[in-house]
């Protein structure tokens, strides 16, 4: 590693389904100002900017160039990374490499989306191959339903098991002032909500939100001067392995399995369930909360429902997942992965307020999207070797 890298500040907007009070640049700026304030830095201290969103959601081309009035990018190096749903985590990984390269000491990372300005499902549908995939799967929900069905068929899990995940995340969101949806629900309410694509109920899935998130990363040379307890990045991994929907192994998230194995190996983690203290999982629907923790190796195949039912992933449990309320409670898509990263950082820094998990030494955040893709980051309180 050329330079070790830490998160020294984070900022999030308030999120809701429509933010007519701000335009895109103003939305971005809201997050940027909060991150700068959090790190007690000014725009002139920032050496480079990484930004990302999904172009077709706002209908703006060359967003890195268009947004400079909001991002602070005028006369600064700015680069755009975009990988669909994983974008928020991808830009964080980008910031990590820019700082780690030794070229920049303080990098501002921005993810944002004004989903209210688009037809999200229409835009997502055009991600898929026009000949082979586009007519079969429309938008995101149908593919997720196929994944859920495959998992249920394999292990006998039910939509009631999934609903338990939704109940958990929606309860956790009560502690997070930045969450878009903050209302507790019961198992019965989830199961009674309309079926969107069998077996997925309305309350199993995320909303689409307007919002932005900004994170400031700094090199080891300056990080501790900016922030007494920075959140050190211990490693990153990404897998975007499929171009075609039919190539994926439904009911398992191969990208999560391969990426997390790489990450555990990099960080010397043998038993992730025991060693991790908190997880911010990009989990846009409740079944993901079952399937993907198996792929991470937290529990064995088919064991997730029992582990969740026993309260292990609730606040106060063995390994709390999504103290923020997760994606099910707030989903400005290009920002969503970066919010996971920011929330994990807050946990490590001890700044998560009402949603703080006690004594977090090791945290995990992820991004999900594309064609069953996963990006991920491992966060720690101690400077890596």
């Amino acid at each position, binding site marked *: 590693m050329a330079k070790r890298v830490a998160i020294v500040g984070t900022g999030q907007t308030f999120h809701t389904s429509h933010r007519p009070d701000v335009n895109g640049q103003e939305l971005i700026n809201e997050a940027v100002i909060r991150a700068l304030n959090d790190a007690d830095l000014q725009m002139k201290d920032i050496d480079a900017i990484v930004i990302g969103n999904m172009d077709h959601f706002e209908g703006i081309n060359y967003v890195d160039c268009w947004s400079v009035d909001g991002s602070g990018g005028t006369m600064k190096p700015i680069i*755009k990374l975009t990988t669909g749903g994983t974008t928020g985590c991808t830009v964080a990984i980008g910031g990590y490499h820019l700082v780690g390269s030794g070229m920049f000491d303080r990098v501002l990372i921005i993810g944002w989306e004004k989903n209210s300005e688009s037809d999200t499902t229409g835009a997502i549908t055009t991600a898929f191959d026009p000949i082979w995939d586009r007519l079969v799967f429309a938008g995101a929900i149908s593919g997720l339903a196929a994944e859920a069905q495959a998992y249920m068929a394999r292990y006998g899990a039910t939509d009631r098991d999934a609903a338990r995940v939704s109940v958990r995340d929606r309860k956790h969101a009560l502690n997070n002032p930045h969450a878009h949806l903050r209302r507790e629900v019961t198992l019965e309410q989830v199961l009674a909500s309309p079926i969107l694509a069998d077996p997925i109920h309305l309350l199993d899935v995320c909303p689409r939100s307007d919002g932005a998130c900004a994170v400031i990363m700094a090199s080891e040379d300056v990080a501790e001067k900016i922030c007494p307890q920075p959140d050190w990045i211990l490693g990153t991994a990404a897998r975007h392995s499929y171009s075609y929907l039919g190539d994926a192994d439904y009911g398992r998230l191969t990208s999560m399995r391969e990426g997390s194995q790489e990450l555990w190996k990099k960080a010397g983690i043998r038993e992730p369930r025991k060693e991790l203290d908190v997880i911010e999982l990009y989990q846009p629907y409740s079944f993901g909360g079952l399937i993907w923790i198996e792929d991470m190796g937290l529990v064995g195949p088919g064991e997730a429902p029992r582990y969740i039912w026993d309260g292990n992933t609730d606040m106060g449990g063995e390994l709390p997942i999504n103290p923020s309320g997760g994606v099910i409670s707030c989903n400005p898509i290009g920002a969503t992965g970066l919010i996971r990263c920011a929330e994990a950082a807050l946990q490590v820094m001890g700044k998560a307020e009402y949603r703080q998990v006690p004594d977090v030494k090791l945290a995990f955040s992820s991004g999900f999207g594309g064609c069953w893709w996963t990006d991920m980051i491992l966060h720690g309180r101690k400077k890596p070797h």
Partner: protein
Amino acid sequence: MDRAAIIGVGMTKIEKNKVRETFADMAWEAVNKALNDAGMTIADIDNVVTTSSDFWDGRTISCMAVGDASGAAHKNVSCVEGDGAYGALYGMTRCLSGSYKTTLVTGHSKGSEGVSSLITNAAFDPIYERALGLDMVTACALQARAYMHRTGTTEEQLALVSVKNHGNALKNPLTQLPLKITVQDVLASEPIADPLHKLDCSPVSDGCAAVIIAHESVATRFRQRPVWIRGVSFCADSFFLGDRNLSRARALAAAAKKAYAMADINDPKKEIDVVELHDAFTYQELLWLEEMGLAEAATAGKLLEKGDFDRNGRLPVNASGGLLSGHPVIAAGLYSLAAVVRQIRGDAGGFQVKKAKTGLAHGVNGLAGQSHCVFILDRDK
């Protein structure tokens, strides 16, 4: 700071319409050429960066279409949106951070599958500007006129850029438009947006390029002699055209200055041997040269007339034929990097220039050169 080098390049032929090829087909060809060039297999590549654009590709998550074909399955991967030079820049930082040893960077474009005026119109502000019907060509025409007004550069001098670069393309089998033309031919070509004639504008082409970047610890393990990245920088100016002095490109001046400093270059006019820059329109070659300190202010047109920028001149510029001779938009910066790499290695074939030790490659994002990326490449570490 550690060093990185480019150890392999691969490009498809640039064409008006690769009607038989998908994005993935183009990427497959460029990647395999780059691997062959470097003497590597895909197993030697430990991470991949693709460069694509949802608007140019007409596809959300445009990187989905080329990941597998770029060899990214089961590897770490990411995607940059914008010019390929920025993709290379990110790929380089992934090596320098110590995370990876070898990054494969691809960039692709199929201009034939889009309407460039609508795509670039979507880069303007949706409330204040888009309804005016501005696009990249009209924005750049405004910039061309502003540059000519400030410097006294003539339409004939702009035309001479086209004559030179299309002429250079006659020696490059990968280009789309090798042309033997005169200044009169350019001036007589169809007016597109005053002062730009058709032959002042690049085509919007199909093509894909790939480069392989290696950390210094492995850069000499493969077949090619590494071409070292000695300096790199990027910088963006204001967004609204009215907020900028359009006749200048202060972001490019800043980026070039930083890249020179990183490369330890004191007098770029003397120390740089070959330049491949973003000549989407003829005036840009002259304006960019001045802003990069490779010509004094308001003199590039005159130096061009003297032959300074010819393939055998003092400072050969776009000896490959440049973008005027073929412009796969998102891949453009990677084609420029690859051309400089080949010059420095001495294997540029018919468009080889003499004594190319240090070269400059350049990429642009946004409207009328809002954001610039400058690479300094060198035979020596």
